[in-house]
Structure formats: C-alpha cells, structure tokens
C-alpha cells in the first residue's frame, strides 16, 4: 500500500530526469550526444555499489539474529543490484566504444566492476541452488560479506591504479545538476522496487510456512478428490 503511494512521485522524478537528460543537459563538445550516457551510467554504477552494501549489511544482520526478514532485504537488493551492475557494464561498454574505440579493456575500474558483477551473479546462483531458507541465507550472507570488499576497490580503482577510466572529470554546472537529478531519480526507483520485492519475498515466505502447516492428510484427501475416477 505504502509502495503504491510512492509510485507517483518516483515516476514524476524519473520523467523529470529523462526530460532533463534529453532537453536540458548541454551537448558535450568532443563526444557529442554519446556523452549523455554518463547520466545513466553513473546512476547505475552508484546503485550497483549501494545494492551490494545493502546485501552485505543485511547478510551481517541475518548472521547476527538468524532472522529471515533480513535475508529478504538481501535477496531483493541482490536482484536489483545485479541488474544495475549488468547495466553499468553494458552502458560503459557502449560509451567505451564511442570514446576509446573499444568495447572492453582490462582497465582497473572495469576489472573491479566486472568482479562486482561476478560477485552478484555468484551470489544469486548459489542462492538459487539451495532450498533450505536458512542455509541459503547463511551461505549467501558469507558470500556477500566477502564480496563487499570489492566495493571500496571499485570506488578507489581510478585513484590507486593507473588506467583509462576518468576519476571525476570537471563538469559544466548544468551537466552536474542533471547528473544529480538522474542519480536521485534512479535511486528513488531503486528504493521503490526494493521495497516492493522485499514485501513480496516476505509474503512468499509466509505462504510457504502456511503451506507447510496445512495438514498433510487434508492435502492428500484433496488430491484424491481431484483425481479422475
């Protein structure tokens, strides 16, 4: 119910960001319109990092109290974070082709971002292969806590190692404003989708519990009545 109320302001923010990116942001002299990718690339990269921090923090909270509600936050954040990490790599690759004339290069920032994407993928694959909710949550939490160490590496890669990826280039004030608006609106969308998915996972958990509690005898009786005579 609360999530639905948030849909309208988030949609308005996202629409404003799209309009600002297309109409307000000035065209960059060297790269032209291809530079506008920055407005989505940076937002996706930021959310991929935030997503993994949420997964790690929720994993740590689960290990502390063994409460599956934390695991729901972790799973919801991992699914969205994986999407953002994939889109970071995809939009970055498109931009790299326009700027460096190559789709991919083993630059430190690109490499650490790829590791983050692999950590997300591994996390989701491991979770998907386990049926027991607590085992899944425990193993997922350990993986997430290990993976969190990649987050500072991604952030600091351009400062600690020499590479092609820019650190934080100087920007026109209008461009910076549009970038902030884009990051803010995508963050709003992320939070909204995260809250909806988290609630869904909680409902799934409750339903699974209820199904387990339904007397087996009754279920068998129901199945027998459904069989053709």
């Amino acid at each position, binding site marked *: 119910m609360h999530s639905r109320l948030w849909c309208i302001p988030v949609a308005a923010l996202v629409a404003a960001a799209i309009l600002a990116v297309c109409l307000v942001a000035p065209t960059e002299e060297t790269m032209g319109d291809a530079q506008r990718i920055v407005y989505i*690339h940076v937002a996706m990269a930021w959310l991929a990092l935030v997503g993994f921090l949420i997964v790690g923090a929720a994993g740590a909270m689960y290990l502390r109290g063994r409460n599956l509600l934390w695991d729901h936050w972790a799973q919801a954040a991992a699914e969205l974070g994986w999407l953002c990490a*994939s*889109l970071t790599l*995809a*939009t970055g690759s498109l*931009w790299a082709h326009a700027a460096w004339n190559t789709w991919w290069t083993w630059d430190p920032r690109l490499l650490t971002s790829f590791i983050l994407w692999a950590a997300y993928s591994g996390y989701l694959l491991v979770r998907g292969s386990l049926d027991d909710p607590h085992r899944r949550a425990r193993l997922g939490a350990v993986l997430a806590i290990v993976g969190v160490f990649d987050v500072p590496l991604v952030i600091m890669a351009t400062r600690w190692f020499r590479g092609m990826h820019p650190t934080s280039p100087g920007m026109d004030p209008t461009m910076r404003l549009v970038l902030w608006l884009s990051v803010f609106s995508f963050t709003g969308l992320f939070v909204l989708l995260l809250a909806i*998915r988290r609630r*869904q996972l909680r409902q799934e958990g409750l339903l699974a519990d209820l199904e387990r509690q339904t007397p087996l005898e*009754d279920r068998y009786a129901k199945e027998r009545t459904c069989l053709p005579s």
Partner: protein
Amino acid sequence: MSTFVTAYLLVWAAIFWHVLRLVARQSRLEQTARALNNQVQEMQEREEQSVARAA
C-alpha cells in the same frame, strides 16, 4: 545520438523486464494465496459439518 539512444533503451528495457517479473510473481503469489484460502475454508466447512453430524 544513436549510442546514447541505444544505452537509454537498453536501461529502460531491462527495468521494464524487472518490473514485469515482479508483476508475474505477484500474480502467482495471489493465486497461491487464493488456493490456500479456499483449502482452509473447505477444511472449516468440513469440520463444521462433522461437528453438526456428531451433535
């Protein structure tokens, strides 16, 4: 322009796909909840009938 448009369409297609999956899951969830609810109602009715018969 085409690089930027490709990137933008890609991002929105992916978000749309994620939202569609959310909606599909929600609909499955509601279906399961309804089935379970019907099952519980049937159980209650049967229990009431057996109590009435015993009385």
